[in-house]
Protein backbone atom coordinates (compact mmCIF):
# COMPACT_ATOMS: atom_id res chain seq x y z
CA UNK A 1 0.00 0.00 0.00
CA UNK A 2 1.39 3.28 -0.99
CA UNK A 3 1.42 6.29 1.22
CA UNK A 4 0.50 9.48 -0.53
CA UNK A 5 2.68 12.42 0.20
CA UNK A 6 0.86 15.24 1.94
CA UNK A 7 -0.73 17.60 -0.53
CA UNK A 8 1.52 20.53 -1.22
CA UNK A 9 0.43 23.82 0.22
CA UNK A 10 -1.01 25.86 -2.60
CA UNK A 11 1.97 27.79 -3.82
CA UNK A 12 2.90 30.22 -6.47
CA UNK A 13 5.42 29.78 -9.17
CA UNK A 14 7.96 32.00 -7.45
CA UNK A 15 9.39 34.57 -9.80
CA UNK A 16 13.14 34.62 -10.40
CA UNK A 17 14.81 37.99 -9.86
CA UNK A 18 16.04 39.30 -13.17
CA UNK A 19 19.14 41.42 -13.54
CA UNK A 20 17.14 44.66 -13.33
CA UNK A 21 14.37 43.48 -11.02
CA UNK A 22 16.23 43.55 -7.66
CA UNK A 23 14.98 46.91 -6.34
CA UNK A 24 11.41 46.04 -7.30
CA UNK A 25 11.45 42.76 -5.43
CA UNK A 26 13.34 44.14 -2.44
CA UNK A 27 10.67 46.81 -1.96
CA UNK A 28 7.94 44.19 -1.98
CA UNK A 29 9.32 42.89 1.32
CA UNK A 30 8.04 46.12 2.85
CA UNK A 31 4.85 46.17 0.82
CA UNK A 32 6.04 48.96 -1.41
CA UNK A 33 5.27 48.92 -5.12
CA UNK A 34 8.00 50.56 -7.20
CA UNK A 35 8.05 51.55 -10.84
CA UNK A 36 11.18 52.14 -12.84
CA UNK A 37 11.05 55.69 -14.13
CA UNK A 38 12.88 57.44 -16.95
CA UNK A 39 13.88 60.94 -15.85
CA UNK A 40 14.77 61.81 -19.42
CA UNK A 41 11.34 61.38 -21.02
CA UNK A 42 9.36 61.31 -17.75
CA UNK A 43 7.64 57.98 -18.33
CA UNK A 44 7.37 54.74 -16.45
CA UNK A 45 9.19 51.65 -17.68
CA UNK A 46 7.86 48.14 -17.22
CA UNK A 47 9.25 45.52 -17.14
CA UNK A 48 12.50 47.00 -15.79
CA UNK A 49 15.29 47.42 -18.27
CA UNK A 50 18.87 48.65 -18.57
CA UNK A 51 17.73 51.54 -20.73
CA UNK A 52 14.54 53.42 -21.51
CA UNK A 53 12.58 51.75 -24.32
CA UNK A 54 10.64 54.99 -24.91
CA UNK A 55 13.53 57.40 -25.50
CA UNK A 56 16.65 55.18 -25.44
CA UNK A 57 18.12 57.05 -22.49
CA UNK A 58 20.77 55.08 -20.67
CA UNK A 59 20.78 53.53 -17.24
CA UNK A 60 21.75 56.83 -15.60
CA UNK A 61 18.36 58.25 -16.57
CA UNK A 62 16.45 55.47 -14.82
CA UNK A 63 15.37 55.55 -11.20
CA UNK A 64 12.87 53.75 -8.99
CA UNK A 65 9.82 55.59 -7.75
CA UNK A 66 7.06 54.60 -5.40
CA UNK A 67 3.78 53.86 -7.12
CA UNK A 68 0.38 54.78 -5.68
CA UNK A 69 -0.86 51.22 -5.94
CA UNK A 70 -3.93 52.43 -7.77
CA UNK A 71 -4.66 50.87 -11.15
CA UNK A 72 -7.38 50.25 -13.70
CA UNK A 73 -8.19 46.87 -15.21
CA UNK A 74 -7.22 46.88 -18.89
CA UNK A 75 -8.15 43.31 -19.82
CA UNK A 76 -9.34 40.48 -17.56
CA UNK A 77 -9.67 36.75 -18.15
CA UNK A 78 -10.85 33.95 -15.92
CA UNK A 79 -8.86 30.72 -15.82
CA UNK A 80 -11.42 27.94 -15.50
CA UNK A 81 -8.92 25.05 -15.55
CA UNK A 82 -6.24 25.95 -13.01
CA UNK A 83 -4.64 22.52 -13.38
CA UNK A 84 -4.20 23.11 -17.11
CA UNK A 85 -2.44 26.36 -16.30
CA UNK A 86 -0.17 24.56 -13.83
CA UNK A 87 -1.46 26.85 -11.09
CA UNK A 88 -2.17 25.50 -7.61
CA UNK A 89 -2.51 28.79 -5.74
CA UNK A 90 -6.28 28.96 -6.18
CA UNK A 91 -7.06 25.54 -4.68
CA UNK A 92 -8.52 24.47 -7.99
CA UNK A 93 -10.97 27.35 -8.12
CA UNK A 94 -11.30 29.67 -11.13
CA UNK A 95 -9.25 32.82 -10.74
CA UNK A 96 -8.91 36.13 -12.55
CA UNK A 97 -5.71 36.95 -14.38
CA UNK A 98 -5.65 40.46 -15.78
CA UNK A 99 -3.58 43.20 -17.27
CA UNK A 100 -3.89 46.34 -15.17
CA UNK A 101 -2.75 49.87 -15.96
CA UNK A 102 -1.03 51.50 -12.99
CA UNK A 103 -1.79 55.13 -12.34
CA UNK A 104 1.84 55.80 -13.31
CA UNK A 105 1.13 54.63 -16.86
CA UNK A 106 2.66 51.18 -16.96
CA UNK A 107 0.81 47.94 -17.57
CA UNK A 108 1.44 44.71 -15.70
CA UNK A 109 -0.04 41.26 -15.43
CA UNK A 110 -1.57 40.30 -12.10
CA UNK A 111 -4.42 38.49 -10.40
CA UNK A 112 -7.46 40.42 -9.29
CA UNK A 113 -8.72 38.95 -6.03
CA UNK A 114 -11.31 39.94 -3.46
CA UNK A 115 -14.33 39.52 -5.70
CA UNK A 116 -15.75 36.71 -7.82
CA UNK A 117 -13.35 36.37 -10.78
CA UNK A 118 -16.07 36.77 -13.40
CA UNK A 119 -17.06 40.13 -11.93
CA UNK A 120 -13.79 41.79 -12.92
CA UNK A 121 -14.42 44.21 -15.77
CA UNK A 122 -12.38 46.37 -18.10
CA UNK A 123 -12.09 49.80 -16.56
CA UNK A 124 -12.59 48.59 -12.98
CA UNK A 125 -10.53 50.55 -10.41
CA UNK A 126 -8.29 48.30 -8.32
CA UNK A 127 -5.62 48.72 -5.66
CA UNK A 128 -2.54 46.71 -4.86
CA UNK A 129 -2.50 44.02 -2.20
CA UNK A 130 0.26 41.60 -1.28
CA UNK A 131 0.74 37.86 -1.10
CA UNK A 132 3.81 36.55 0.70
CA UNK A 133 6.32 34.44 -1.19
CA UNK A 134 8.49 31.86 0.55
CA UNK A 135 11.62 34.03 0.69
CA UNK A 136 10.11 37.13 2.25
CA UNK A 137 9.34 38.82 -1.01
CA UNK A 138 5.70 39.56 -1.75
CA UNK A 139 3.78 39.25 -4.96
CA UNK A 140 1.68 42.26 -5.95
CA UNK A 141 -1.95 41.36 -6.56
CA UNK A 142 -4.87 43.72 -6.99
CA UNK A 143 -8.33 43.95 -5.47
CA UNK A 144 -11.33 46.12 -6.26
CA UNK A 145 -10.87 49.65 -4.95
CA UNK A 146 -12.86 50.15 -1.78
CA UNK A 147 -14.77 53.18 -2.97
CA UNK A 148 -15.67 52.12 -6.49
CA UNK A 149 -18.01 49.76 -8.25
CA UNK A 150 -17.30 47.90 -11.44
CA UNK A 151 -15.92 49.83 -14.35
CA UNK A 152 -18.49 49.22 -17.07
CA UNK A 153 -18.01 51.83 -19.73
CA UNK A 154 -16.98 55.14 -18.32
CA UNK A 155 -13.37 54.74 -17.35
CA UNK A 156 -11.82 52.75 -20.17
CA UNK A 157 -8.94 54.01 -22.24
Amino acid at each position, binding site marked *: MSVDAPKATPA*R*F*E*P*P*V*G*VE*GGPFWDATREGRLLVQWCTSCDQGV*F*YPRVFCPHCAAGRDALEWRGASGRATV*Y*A*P*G*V*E*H*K*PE*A*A*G*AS*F*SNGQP*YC*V*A*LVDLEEGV*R*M*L*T*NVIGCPP*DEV*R*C*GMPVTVTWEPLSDGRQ*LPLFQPAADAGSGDGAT*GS
Partner: protein
Amino acid sequence: MDRSLRGAAAIVGVADDVSPTGELERFGRELEVAMVLDALADAGLGLADVDGVCHPESAVAFAEYLGVHPNFVESTMTGGSSYEVHVEHAAAAIAAGVCDVVVSVYAATPRSDRTQRRRREWRRPGGPNPMAEWDLPYGLRTPMGPYALAAARHMYEFGTTSEQLAQIAVSTRQWAALNPRARYRDPITVDDVLASPLQVSPLHLLDCCLVTDGAGAFVMTSAERARSLAKPPVYVLGAATCTDHMVIGQMPDLTTTPGAVSGPRAFEMAGLQPTDVDVLMGYDSFTITALLHLEDLGFCKKGEGGPFAADGHLGPGGTLAMNTNGGGLSFTHPGMYGMFLVTEATRQLRGEGGDRQVAGADVAVAHGSGMFLSVMSTAVLGTEATL
Protein backbone atom coordinates in the same frame (compact mmCIF):
# COMPACT_ATOMS: atom_id res chain seq x y z
CA MET B 1 7.50 51.38 -50.89
CA ASP B 2 10.57 50.47 -52.90
CA ARG B 3 10.53 46.71 -52.60
CA SER B 4 10.23 44.40 -55.53
CA LEU B 5 9.64 40.79 -54.66
CA ARG B 6 6.51 40.86 -56.76
CA GLY B 7 6.45 37.87 -59.04
CA ALA B 8 10.13 37.08 -58.50
CA ALA B 9 9.68 33.74 -56.81
CA ALA B 10 7.10 31.00 -56.67
CA ILE B 11 5.92 28.11 -54.56
CA VAL B 12 6.27 25.07 -56.79
CA GLY B 13 5.83 22.13 -54.47
CA VAL B 14 3.87 21.42 -51.31
CA ALA B 15 3.18 18.43 -49.08
CA ASP B 16 1.47 17.87 -45.81
CA ASP B 17 0.49 14.97 -43.64
CA VAL B 18 -2.38 14.96 -41.21
CA SER B 19 -4.92 12.37 -40.10
CA PRO B 20 -8.53 12.57 -38.96
CA THR B 21 -7.40 10.61 -35.91
CA GLY B 22 -5.22 13.54 -35.04
CA GLU B 23 -2.21 11.22 -34.85
CA LEU B 24 0.51 10.21 -37.30
CA GLU B 25 2.69 7.12 -37.16
CA ARG B 26 5.86 8.85 -38.29
CA PHE B 27 7.47 11.55 -36.21
CA GLY B 28 10.60 13.63 -35.91
CA ARG B 29 13.21 13.61 -38.65
CA GLU B 30 11.53 10.74 -40.48
CA LEU B 31 8.41 12.82 -40.89
CA GLU B 32 10.34 15.94 -41.84
CA VAL B 33 12.35 14.12 -44.49
CA ALA B 34 9.19 12.56 -45.92
CA MET B 35 7.59 16.00 -46.23
CA VAL B 36 10.62 17.44 -47.98
CA LEU B 37 10.85 14.57 -50.45
CA ASP B 38 7.09 14.69 -51.12
CA ALA B 39 7.14 18.45 -51.71
CA LEU B 40 10.13 18.13 -54.02
CA ALA B 41 8.43 15.33 -55.93
CA ASP B 42 5.32 17.50 -56.19
CA ALA B 43 7.51 20.10 -57.89
CA GLY B 44 9.31 17.63 -60.13
CA LEU B 45 12.54 18.35 -58.28
CA GLY B 46 14.91 16.31 -56.11
CA LEU B 47 17.22 16.81 -53.18
CA ALA B 48 20.13 17.53 -55.52
CA ASP B 49 18.32 20.69 -56.63
CA VAL B 50 18.03 22.10 -53.12
CA ASP B 51 20.37 24.97 -52.28
CA GLY B 52 18.30 26.66 -49.60
CA VAL B 53 16.90 25.19 -46.36
CA CYS B 54 14.47 26.72 -43.87
CA HIS B 55 13.82 25.13 -40.49
CA PRO B 56 12.62 27.08 -37.47
CA GLU B 57 14.87 25.27 -35.02
CA SER B 58 18.07 24.73 -36.95
CA ALA B 59 18.34 24.89 -40.71
CA VAL B 60 21.99 23.95 -40.37
CA ALA B 61 21.29 20.75 -38.46
CA PHE B 62 18.49 19.83 -40.81
CA ALA B 63 20.57 20.49 -43.93
CA GLU B 64 23.25 18.25 -42.51
CA TYR B 65 20.68 15.55 -41.90
CA LEU B 66 19.42 15.88 -45.47
CA GLY B 67 22.97 15.76 -46.76
CA VAL B 68 22.60 18.95 -48.75
CA HIS B 69 25.00 21.88 -48.84
CA PRO B 70 22.78 24.93 -49.11
CA ASN B 71 23.79 28.49 -49.89
CA PHE B 72 20.87 29.79 -47.87
CA VAL B 73 19.91 28.70 -44.36
CA GLU B 74 16.99 30.27 -42.57
CA SER B 75 16.16 29.43 -38.95
CA THR B 76 13.87 32.30 -38.13
CA MET B 77 11.53 31.13 -35.40
CA THR B 78 8.50 33.32 -34.90
CA GLY B 79 6.07 30.68 -33.68
CA GLY B 80 3.13 29.96 -35.92
CA SER B 81 4.06 32.63 -38.44
CA SER B 82 7.53 31.11 -39.05
CA TYR B 83 6.56 29.64 -42.40
CA GLU B 84 5.15 32.86 -43.81
CA VAL B 85 8.39 34.54 -42.75
CA HIS B 86 10.24 31.77 -44.59
CA VAL B 87 8.20 32.49 -47.72
CA GLU B 88 9.17 36.14 -47.49
CA HIS B 89 12.84 35.52 -46.83
CA ALA B 90 13.15 32.76 -49.40
CA ALA B 91 11.56 34.99 -52.03
CA ALA B 92 14.05 37.72 -51.19
CA ALA B 93 16.98 35.34 -51.34
CA ILE B 94 15.85 33.87 -54.64
CA ALA B 95 15.22 37.32 -56.11
CA ALA B 96 18.71 38.38 -55.05
CA GLY B 97 20.32 35.37 -56.65
CA VAL B 98 21.47 33.96 -53.33
CA CYS B 99 19.92 30.59 -54.05
CA ASP B 100 17.58 28.90 -56.46
CA VAL B 101 15.54 26.15 -54.78
CA VAL B 102 14.47 26.55 -51.15
CA VAL B 103 12.66 24.03 -48.97
CA SER B 104 10.89 24.78 -45.71
CA VAL B 105 9.62 22.03 -43.45
CA TYR B 106 7.56 21.42 -40.34
CA ALA B 107 6.66 18.33 -38.35
CA ALA B 108 5.18 18.12 -34.88
CA THR B 109 3.39 15.28 -33.15
CA PRO B 110 2.20 16.60 -29.80
CA ARG B 111 -0.77 14.24 -29.67
CA SER B 112 1.03 10.96 -30.36
CA ASP B 113 4.03 12.10 -28.33
CA ARG B 114 1.61 12.05 -25.43
CA THR B 115 -0.29 8.86 -26.25
CA GLN B 116 2.92 7.03 -27.13
CA ARG B 117 4.66 8.52 -24.10
CA ARG B 118 7.58 9.60 -26.22
CA ARG B 119 10.45 11.16 -24.41
CA ARG B 120 10.36 14.83 -25.11
CA GLU B 121 12.33 17.54 -23.49
CA TRP B 122 10.11 20.17 -22.03
CA ARG B 123 11.39 23.59 -22.96
CA ARG B 124 11.78 25.87 -20.02
CA PRO B 125 12.93 29.42 -19.94
CA GLY B 126 16.69 29.22 -19.46
CA GLY B 127 16.92 31.32 -16.35
CA PRO B 128 15.34 34.61 -15.40
CA ASN B 129 13.49 36.11 -18.30
CA PRO B 130 10.66 38.62 -18.47
CA MET B 131 7.95 36.02 -18.78
CA ALA B 132 9.14 34.01 -15.78
CA GLU B 133 9.64 37.05 -13.62
CA TRP B 134 6.52 39.03 -14.46
CA ASP B 135 3.92 36.66 -15.93
CA LEU B 136 4.29 33.07 -14.75
CA PRO B 137 3.47 33.75 -11.06
CA TYR B 138 -0.03 34.77 -12.06
CA GLY B 139 -1.04 31.57 -13.79
CA LEU B 140 -1.74 32.99 -17.23
CA ARG B 141 -2.17 29.81 -19.25
CA THR B 142 -0.43 29.76 -22.57
CA PRO B 143 -1.28 29.89 -25.29
CA MET B 144 -4.93 30.74 -24.69
CA GLY B 145 -4.61 33.16 -21.78
CA PRO B 146 -3.23 36.10 -23.75
CA TYR B 147 -5.84 35.56 -26.47
CA ALA B 148 -8.60 35.55 -23.86
CA LEU B 149 -7.39 38.94 -22.63
CA ALA B 150 -7.46 40.25 -26.20
CA ALA B 151 -10.99 38.92 -26.64
CA ALA B 152 -12.13 40.53 -23.38
CA ARG B 153 -10.69 43.87 -24.43
CA HIS B 154 -12.22 43.65 -27.92
CA MET B 155 -15.60 42.92 -26.36
CA TYR B 156 -15.21 45.92 -24.08
CA GLU B 157 -14.14 48.39 -26.74
CA PHE B 158 -16.36 47.27 -29.61
CA GLY B 159 -19.22 45.28 -28.13
CA THR B 160 -18.07 42.07 -29.75
CA THR B 161 -19.98 39.06 -28.41
CA SER B 162 -19.21 35.43 -27.67
CA GLU B 163 -21.87 34.54 -30.25
CA GLN B 164 -20.00 36.45 -32.94
CA LEU B 165 -16.74 34.73 -32.07
CA ALA B 166 -18.53 31.39 -32.06
CA GLN B 167 -19.75 31.97 -35.61
CA ILE B 168 -16.14 31.86 -36.78
CA ALA B 169 -15.79 28.35 -35.35
CA VAL B 170 -19.11 27.38 -36.95
CA SER B 171 -18.15 28.71 -40.41
CA THR B 172 -14.74 27.09 -40.20
CA ARG B 173 -16.31 23.75 -39.32
CA GLN B 174 -18.48 24.06 -42.44
CA TRP B 175 -15.30 24.21 -44.50
CA ALA B 176 -13.85 21.25 -42.58
CA ALA B 177 -16.92 19.20 -43.52
CA LEU B 178 -15.70 19.49 -47.12
CA ASN B 179 -12.18 18.28 -46.28
CA PRO B 180 -11.87 14.50 -45.86
CA ARG B 181 -8.59 14.91 -43.99
CA ALA B 182 -9.97 17.24 -41.33
CA ARG B 183 -9.92 16.13 -37.72
CA TYR B 184 -13.49 17.28 -37.04
CA ARG B 185 -16.17 17.43 -39.75
CA ASP B 186 -19.52 17.21 -37.96
CA PRO B 187 -21.49 20.46 -38.08
CA ILE B 188 -21.57 22.60 -34.96
CA THR B 189 -23.80 25.49 -33.94
CA VAL B 190 -23.18 28.72 -32.11
CA ASP B 191 -24.93 27.15 -29.12
CA ASP B 192 -22.52 24.20 -29.25
CA VAL B 193 -19.59 26.59 -29.00
CA LEU B 194 -21.13 28.52 -26.13
CA ALA B 195 -21.99 25.27 -24.31
CA SER B 196 -18.45 23.94 -24.57
CA PRO B 197 -16.40 24.34 -21.38
CA LEU B 198 -14.89 27.72 -20.65
CA GLN B 199 -11.10 27.57 -20.78
CA VAL B 200 -9.82 31.04 -20.06
CA SER B 201 -12.98 33.11 -20.33
CA PRO B 202 -14.27 34.51 -22.53
CA LEU B 203 -12.89 31.67 -24.69
CA HIS B 204 -14.68 28.32 -24.77
CA LEU B 205 -13.14 25.01 -25.79
CA LEU B 206 -14.57 25.34 -29.32
CA ASP B 207 -13.04 28.82 -29.62
CA CYS B 208 -9.65 27.10 -29.38
CA CYS B 209 -7.59 25.29 -31.97
CA LEU B 210 -6.96 21.56 -31.91
CA VAL B 211 -3.94 19.67 -30.69
CA THR B 212 -3.03 17.19 -33.42
CA ASP B 213 -0.02 15.77 -35.15
CA GLY B 214 0.81 17.29 -38.50
CA ALA B 215 3.59 17.95 -40.94
CA GLY B 216 4.18 19.79 -44.15
CA ALA B 217 6.73 21.27 -46.50
CA PHE B 218 6.93 23.65 -49.40
CA VAL B 219 9.45 24.29 -52.15
CA MET B 220 10.19 27.67 -53.71
CA THR B 221 12.22 28.67 -56.70
CA SER B 222 12.56 31.52 -59.18
CA ALA B 223 9.66 32.50 -61.37
CA GLU B 224 11.68 31.57 -64.42
CA ARG B 225 12.47 28.08 -63.23
CA ALA B 226 8.98 27.61 -61.80
CA ARG B 227 7.47 27.66 -65.25
CA SER B 228 9.35 24.53 -66.27
CA LEU B 229 8.27 22.47 -63.27
CA ALA B 230 5.49 19.99 -62.66
CA LYS B 231 2.70 22.10 -61.20
CA PRO B 232 1.30 25.55 -61.93
CA PRO B 233 3.46 28.06 -60.05
CA VAL B 234 2.02 29.97 -57.14
CA TYR B 235 3.79 33.31 -57.17
CA VAL B 236 4.70 35.40 -54.18
CA LEU B 237 3.22 38.78 -55.03
CA GLY B 238 3.85 40.46 -51.72
CA ALA B 239 5.20 39.58 -48.31
CA ALA B 240 5.79 41.46 -45.10
CA THR B 241 6.28 40.79 -41.41
CA CYS B 242 5.85 42.87 -38.29
CA THR B 243 6.22 42.28 -34.56
CA ASP B 244 5.46 44.72 -31.78
CA HIS B 245 5.86 42.63 -28.61
CA MET B 246 6.52 39.17 -27.33
CA VAL B 247 4.76 38.87 -23.96
CA ILE B 248 1.16 40.02 -23.88
CA GLY B 249 1.71 42.75 -21.30
CA GLN B 250 3.95 44.54 -23.78
CA MET B 251 1.39 44.54 -26.62
CA PRO B 252 0.62 48.20 -27.26
CA ASP B 253 -3.09 47.68 -27.96
CA LEU B 254 -4.75 44.31 -27.39
CA THR B 255 -7.28 44.98 -30.12
CA THR B 256 -4.81 45.69 -32.93
CA THR B 257 -2.13 43.21 -33.98
CA PRO B 258 1.04 43.92 -35.94
CA GLY B 259 -0.90 42.45 -38.89
CA ALA B 260 -2.22 46.00 -39.29
CA VAL B 261 1.32 46.77 -40.53
CA SER B 262 2.34 43.54 -42.27
CA GLY B 263 -0.97 43.21 -44.12
CA PRO B 264 -1.05 46.62 -45.82
CA ARG B 265 2.67 46.37 -46.67
CA ALA B 266 2.20 42.98 -48.30
CA PHE B 267 -0.86 44.18 -50.22
CA GLU B 268 1.00 47.30 -51.36
CA MET B 269 3.87 45.21 -52.68
CA ALA B 270 1.40 43.00 -54.49
CA GLY B 271 -0.50 45.98 -55.90
CA LEU B 272 -3.68 44.39 -54.59
CA GLN B 273 -6.34 45.03 -51.97
CA PRO B 274 -8.40 42.85 -49.66
CA THR B 275 -11.25 42.97 -52.18
CA ASP B 276 -9.00 41.14 -54.65
CA VAL B 277 -8.54 38.16 -52.33
CA ASP B 278 -10.28 34.92 -53.24
CA VAL B 279 -9.03 32.82 -50.32
CA LEU B 280 -7.91 34.09 -46.92
CA MET B 281 -5.85 31.67 -44.89
CA GLY B 282 -5.76 33.55 -41.60
CA TYR B 283 -4.17 31.73 -38.70
CA ASP B 284 -7.02 30.70 -36.41
CA SER B 285 -5.33 29.65 -33.22
CA PHE B 286 -8.48 30.96 -31.56
CA THR B 287 -11.63 32.53 -32.92
CA ILE B 288 -10.45 35.94 -31.69
CA THR B 289 -7.23 35.53 -33.67
CA ALA B 290 -9.12 35.14 -36.94
CA LEU B 291 -11.40 38.05 -36.06
CA LEU B 292 -8.42 40.33 -35.49
CA HIS B 293 -6.94 39.31 -38.86
CA LEU B 294 -10.18 40.29 -40.63
CA GLU B 295 -9.91 43.79 -39.19
CA ASP B 296 -6.16 44.29 -39.36
CA LEU B 297 -5.84 43.06 -42.94
CA GLY B 298 -8.67 45.37 -43.98
CA PHE B 299 -11.45 42.92 -44.80
CA CYS B 300 -13.62 44.99 -42.48
CA LYS B 301 -13.11 48.05 -40.32
CA LYS B 302 -11.56 47.94 -36.86
CA GLY B 303 -14.19 46.88 -34.40
CA GLU B 304 -16.51 45.42 -37.03
CA GLY B 305 -15.05 41.92 -37.12
CA GLY B 306 -17.80 40.57 -34.90
CA PRO B 307 -20.75 41.62 -37.05
CA PHE B 308 -18.76 40.71 -40.19
CA ALA B 309 -18.22 37.15 -38.95
CA ALA B 310 -21.75 36.83 -37.64
CA ASP B 311 -23.22 37.68 -41.00
CA GLY B 312 -21.96 34.33 -42.26
CA HIS B 313 -19.54 35.88 -44.75
CA LEU B 314 -16.86 33.33 -44.00
CA GLY B 315 -18.29 29.88 -44.68
CA PRO B 316 -18.72 28.01 -47.97
CA GLY B 317 -20.75 30.17 -50.34
CA GLY B 318 -20.01 33.32 -48.36
CA THR B 319 -18.37 36.49 -49.62
CA LEU B 320 -14.92 35.70 -48.16
CA ALA B 321 -13.60 32.14 -48.23
CA MET B 322 -11.60 31.93 -45.02
CA ASN B 323 -9.64 28.91 -43.84
CA THR B 324 -10.99 26.57 -46.47
CA ASN B 325 -9.14 23.52 -45.12
CA GLY B 326 -11.05 23.78 -41.85
CA GLY B 327 -8.37 25.80 -40.14
CA GLY B 328 -6.57 25.29 -36.89
CA LEU B 329 -10.01 25.08 -35.31
CA SER B 330 -11.15 21.93 -37.17
CA PHE B 331 -8.50 20.67 -39.63
CA THR B 332 -5.22 20.33 -37.78
CA HIS B 333 -3.04 22.22 -35.32
CA PRO B 334 0.27 20.71 -34.27
CA GLY B 335 1.54 23.93 -32.71
CA MET B 336 2.96 26.05 -35.51
CA TYR B 337 0.11 25.80 -37.99
CA GLY B 338 1.45 28.44 -40.41
CA MET B 339 2.79 25.70 -42.69
CA PHE B 340 -0.77 24.64 -43.52
CA LEU B 341 -1.73 28.19 -44.47
CA VAL B 342 0.85 27.92 -47.26
CA THR B 343 -0.05 24.40 -48.39
CA GLU B 344 -3.79 25.16 -48.52
CA ALA B 345 -3.36 28.52 -50.26
CA THR B 346 -1.16 26.80 -52.84
CA ARG B 347 -3.66 24.01 -53.44
CA GLN B 348 -6.51 26.49 -53.84
CA LEU B 349 -4.55 28.52 -56.39
CA ARG B 350 -3.72 25.34 -58.31
CA GLY B 351 -7.38 24.29 -58.34
CA GLU B 352 -6.61 21.23 -56.24
CA GLY B 353 -9.13 22.02 -53.50
CA GLY B 354 -11.55 19.20 -54.30
CA ASP B 355 -15.00 19.70 -52.75
CA ARG B 356 -13.81 22.86 -51.02
CA GLN B 357 -12.25 24.46 -54.12
CA VAL B 358 -13.03 28.15 -54.41
CA ALA B 359 -13.98 28.62 -58.05
CA GLY B 360 -11.56 30.70 -60.06
CA ALA B 361 -9.26 31.44 -57.14
CA ASP B 362 -6.38 33.63 -58.35
CA VAL B 363 -5.28 35.44 -55.18
CA ALA B 364 -4.77 33.89 -51.77
CA VAL B 365 -3.36 35.32 -48.57
CA ALA B 366 -1.44 33.23 -46.04
CA HIS B 367 -1.38 35.27 -42.86
CA GLY B 368 0.57 33.71 -40.04
CA SER B 369 0.34 34.63 -36.37
CA GLY B 370 3.16 33.76 -34.02
CA MET B 371 3.47 33.45 -30.27
CA PHE B 372 0.96 35.70 -28.45
CA LEU B 373 -0.36 37.83 -31.31
CA SER B 374 3.31 38.82 -31.38
CA VAL B 375 4.59 38.24 -34.90
CA MET B 376 2.38 38.64 -37.94
CA SER B 377 3.58 37.65 -41.38
CA THR B 378 1.51 38.13 -44.49
CA ALA B 379 2.17 36.45 -47.84
CA VAL B 380 0.03 37.48 -50.81
CA LEU B 381 0.08 34.65 -53.35
CA GLY B 382 -1.23 34.54 -56.90
CA THR B 383 -1.58 32.46 -60.02
CA GLU B 384 0.10 33.17 -63.37
CA ALA B 385 -2.93 35.31 -64.24
CA THR B 386 -2.07 37.79 -61.50
CA LEU B 387 1.39 38.67 -62.80
